[in-house]
């Protein structure tokens, strides 16, 4: 113990110009700094500075919504990494998945992604369940509930489109069974009610090569076209929509009065 000024690494860091340029507040337990850390941080800014005590409790939210978001982020990261090793063609897809299992360093990435996808469906369902049970969809949060429902559907579609990518029997037939339902879409599916009415003379307009299922699969059956289309939907189209809707969803939580609570 000497009288020399104590070597305080924390202080050196928090008082450096670099730190200050990044964070507009000190790192202390003072109310002001804590408030600022939320207010001035782009990521924490999703939250208000203060929330209802009841709403902050784990027992109330189960953290299901936040967790869904976190699961989504892990899926984005692991998904991007998987894309480095995966080619969505009928020649390569299966082998590439096999490669993840057999020799790719940390090929466990595939397990993280797959189980994460299952987990996300559970957390999203759970989130909806909680929101319903606390009546949190009630005005003024109706619209955010609707967005939530769409996000739920998109989550399942994300999982569904990803299901095909390993290109094994499990994948192909699950998607075949699932996508066959699109054949029965009224008027737009070639086996849907009313499709037979859409004809020009004796030429059927809606047939297996021109119906909604064909547009989805890029072919009459689950084949090379479907693999590519599902890959694009899975990796680009649906995630983009999810990110946009999530932004609206989070924004609306703030605008609709934060985590719900009794009046």
């Amino acid at each position: 113990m000497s009288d020399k000024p104590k070597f305080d690494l924390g202080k050196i860091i928090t008082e450096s110009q670099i730190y200050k340029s990044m964070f507009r507040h000190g790192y202390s337990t003072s109310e002001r700094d804590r408030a600022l850390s939320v207010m001035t941080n782009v990521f924490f800014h999703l939250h208000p500075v203060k929330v209802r005590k009841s709403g902050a409790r784990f027992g109330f939210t189960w953290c299901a919504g936040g967790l869904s978001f976190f699961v989504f982020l892990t899926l984005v990261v692991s998904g991007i990494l998987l894309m480095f090793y995966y080619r969505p063609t009928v020649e390569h897809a299966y082998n590439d998945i096999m490669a993840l299992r057999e020799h790719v360093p940390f090929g466990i990435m595939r397990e993280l992604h797959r189980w994460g996808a299952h987990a996300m469906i559970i957390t999203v369902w759970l989130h909806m369940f909680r929101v319903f049970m606390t009546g949190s969809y009630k005005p003024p949060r109706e619209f955010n509930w609707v967005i939530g429902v769409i996000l739920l559907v998109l989550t399942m579609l994300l999982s569904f489109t990803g299901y095909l990518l390993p290109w094994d029997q499990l994948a192909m037939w699950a998607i075949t069974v699932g996508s066959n339902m699109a054949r029965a879409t009224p008027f737009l599916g070639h086996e849907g009610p009313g499709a037979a009415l859409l004809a020009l003379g004796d030429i059927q307009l809606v047939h297996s090569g021109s119906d909604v299922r064909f547009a989805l699969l890029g072919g009459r059956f689950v084949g090379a076209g479907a693999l590519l289309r599902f890959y694009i939907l899975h990796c680009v189209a649906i995630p983009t929509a999810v990110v946009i809707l999530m932004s609206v969803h989070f924004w609306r939580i703030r605008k609709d009065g934060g985590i719900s609570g009794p009046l």
Partner: protein
Amino acid sequence: MAEIQTPPPAPQTPAGPQKIDRRTFLSWTGVAWVSFAAATTGALSIVLRYLFPNVVFEPPTSFKAGFPDDYEIGVVDERWKEKFGVWLIRTAEGMFALSTICTHLGCTPNWLSTESKFKCPCHGSGFYKSGINFEGPAPRPLERYRIMRAEDGQILIDKSKKFQQEKGEWNNPEAFLTL
């Protein structure tokens, strides 16, 4: 949106250099929104049309299946099942080509020769040799394909034309090749 519905600027506002009367304004608005809507719809339909390729790399829809004498009477012939998804069945009167796609959810049924029926492994639909459904969830009989004689006398099967029993299409001369 709010601005659109606002009437033209009040007279006291020093508007643009020359004033546009109400009617002209409305007609411009009309033209603007209609053409904008049309363009948006057009762009969307172009995207939708884009989803349907002009050329598909799928097996050809019609094929030649040899001569009728290559087929035994009363036997469900499975030689084209793998490649073209067709069963050829020859009866005493002629031949017909049965689709191997279950009418329930599109699985491939199996021909069980001992039980003399097609049985779909997915949801258990059963079909007679003729293709008529008799058990399970399949809503209708298996489809038949167009079958005819090619110019060289071979059997020609065209999968792009289907015949459905419940529509009475099996009576179509192209649904059954009389020999």
